[in-house]
């Protein structure tokens, strides 16, 4: 265990643990848009930047992304230094110019005092903030169905050749974790469409409600050794069944005691 100082308070941390993890454990609010516990940090949004220094640095300080900076003994961290706050509002100002219609961006920007961008708004700006959570999650899941395409201001998230990706199983991890709810999908009539690809959904054998896509069920069953029959029931019906089983067990217990 090592000790670091965050906003004047000495706290314990594991050596090499990322600063953001320590900061969040201390319940200090540092905004992020590209951070997700399930995937490796990337340092793209730059909102989690903090000011760091050490006594031996002679007053010199540095600005680093806390999601990627490993904690080291004696480090002094300021999560809301004047320069850091200015940097955050400037970055949020840039975001607001690019995605003026995104409610999530507007709210976060407002928290840092940016109600209207001072820059030129991007015409037809969409709500994809290029945080890369979707692509990193897709990679972590093992599908690699979507990725960042192009570079600079024209960069976008897309499947290969912008065609329905063969590798996608319709797990919805990308859409459900998108911080600005940008990734569209359509679930109706027992099917799912995402990234221009159509999927058939597995219907619950008890109530008929759809659960997950056939491809995803097969993938999990094959790679995670789960019996495919498990997916033929929806969550609710699984719980109903579980409750029934538990009820029967307690009945037997009562009978056994009496």
């Amino acid at each position: 265990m090592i000790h670091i100082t965050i906003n004047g308070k000495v706290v314990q941390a594991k050596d090499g643990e990322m600063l953001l993890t320590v900061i969040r454990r201390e319940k200090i609010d540092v905004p992020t848009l590209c951070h997700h516990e399930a995937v490796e940090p990337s340092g793209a949004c730059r909102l989690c930047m903090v000011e760091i220094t050490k006594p031996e640095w002679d007053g010199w300080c540095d600005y680093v992304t806390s999601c990627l900076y490993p904690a080291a003994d004696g480090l002094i961290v300021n999560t809301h230094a004047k320069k850091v706050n200015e940097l955050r509002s400037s970055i949020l100002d840039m975001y607001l110019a690019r995605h003026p219609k995104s409610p999530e961006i507007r709210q976060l920007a407002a928290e840092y005092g940016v109600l209207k961008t001072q820059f030129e708004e991007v015409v037809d700006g969409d709500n994809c903030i290029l945080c890369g959570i979707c692509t990193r999650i897709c990679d972590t899941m093992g599908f690699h169905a979507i990725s960042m395409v192009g570079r600079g201001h024209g960069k976008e998230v897309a499947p290969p050749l912008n065609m329905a990706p063969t590798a996608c199983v319709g797990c919805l991890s990308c859409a459900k974790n998108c911080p600005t709810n940008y990734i569209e999908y359509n679930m109706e009539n027992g099917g799912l469409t995402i990234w221009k690809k159509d999927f058939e959904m597995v219907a619950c054998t008890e109530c008929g409600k759809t659960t997950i896509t056939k491809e995803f069920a097969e993938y999990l069953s094959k790679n995670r050794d789960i019996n495919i029959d498990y997916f033929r029931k929806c969550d609710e019906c699984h719980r109903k069944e579980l409750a029934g089983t538990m009820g029967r067990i307690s009945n037997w217990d009562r009978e056994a005691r009496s």
Partner: protein
Amino acid sequence: MNIKNVKDLNKIKKETLAISKKHPKKVLVCCGTGCIANGATKIVESVRDGLAKRKLKDVSIEILKETGCHGFCELGPLVIIEPQEIFYTKVKPKHVDDILDKSFLENEIIEPLLFTNPVDGSKITKYNDISFFKHQQRIALRNLGKISAHDMKEYIGVDGYQALAKVLFKMTPDEVIEEVIKSGLRGRGGGGFSAGKKWKICKNIQADKHYVICNGDEGDPGAFMDRSIMEGDPHGVLEGMMIAAYAIGAKEGYIYVRDEYPLAVTHLEKAILDCERSGLLGENILGTDFSFTIKIARGAGAFVCGESSALMKSVAGEVGEPRAKYVRSVVKGLYDEPTVLNNVETLVNIPTIIRKGADWYSSIGTKKSTGTKVFSLVGKVRNTGLIEVPMGITLREIIYDIGGGILEDRPFKAVQTGGPSGGCIPESMLDLPVDFDSLTEVGSMMGSGGMIVMDDKTCIVDVAKYFLEFLVEESCGKCTPCREGLYQLHKLLEKICAGKGEMSDIEKMERLSENVMIGSLCGLGKSGPNPLMSTLKHFKDEYIEHIKDKKCRAGVCPELITYEILDNCTGCMACIPACGYDAITGKKKEVHIIAQDKCTKCGACYAVCNFDSILVS
């Protein structure tokens, strides 16, 4: 060819020198990309045919040398006759017979093909008498223009691979590292970090594997130093890599070259193959325990892939995006192993440093920036091209002595150094010594060695806009400040150039620049606002003129200038058809008139007027 030990190496050297002595008269044809574009391949064919006609076919390989770039590309194709050092410019196939008969077989000189001194119009015979070459000192470019680039024997003939033999038999890896540290050699790719210290850090890290990578992803607009070296002296680069590999204990190396450099790729591939076949690459090199292989990794030409972490991702087959380098790539680089990444120019210096010693190298240049530096000198100077000069030389010497001064004797305005992430240096600083620290101090940088000279007809705001546009296009788009911040800076510059700027925009740009510099992930974003910041620092009045007076003194920004015809117009009517928008009317021998509502300020009339009658204001 088999090179199993030092004896074999020295035997080849002796043979090569003997052949060279037997045929002192040589025809050197520059076959750099610039000269090839101007038709050098046809010159080579004509010389070969010409030699055959003169019954010299059997020895044509010893007489005709297809060399690397001489650096004087604008005058290509270049032909040099050795040993007289006769320097012929803009040679065409029809001149070849004459050259062979007069200058090769006899000692005659063909005057019309000689170099014309742009300052006084005199003809100069020998290339070493030309001011462009005279003031240079060539270490990195030592073999360029001297030997056939693709011939391994010729490289061995000029002491090639002797430095490798020296380190393998006479020096320990630590001694090699100490020698390079002592030489003071700093990274020529732009960072300026001590090459030897980098090797030392890498060597001292315990790991299964160490890697050496040569960075040949030169991406600055107008820069071609590394390309010319890879094309003209591929073995020099390989030898530098081998020495680095021996020093840090690497068994594998990569050369990262952009695919826009096909000739460099071809020459490097040939050089690697020759080394593999002869035994200079592979297992037990020169009979020692040292084993090393080199592979070429071809990049798709993204500017960001010149950045170390993005480059390593690209080599590994991933998307070329940088990562945060709180753990340096020398510690955790390619495939997460300790990796030394050196620029082409850094590596090509190594063999000479080893052969001649650190003391010799550090005696050249300044105390903190030793040795020489290659620049591509371009823009509004009389002599443009590739130059190598000792560190500490002043900008004035480069521009006026080597470059021959500003075209048409116009006033000098600024020189841009360091590529897109560099900055502009004004006239008041022309006596600044060119070294890593002096350039950084004035808000520019050494970078990889681009040098663009500008005269009074260059608009400084337009220059900043140009570089920002390049950076916006080349930003990888991963982090927000670089992707969105540079985009907004470019938009603000566009606004100012269009005459719609407000004074508050300057402050806005300054603040945004600062945040982009602090907030960006990699060095490219962090230095992205440099072209803007340095021009704002040294040429603020020009920005204010654009904003307040709505004037562009250089006559460049279309929205801020007008074209008028002066009274001295002779009525020659040349400008009337030149205008693509029918904006000019007038009769023969009468002063013409430009209709301002139709004029698009394209400058076509200005270009055709022979009487200086078009006023741009």
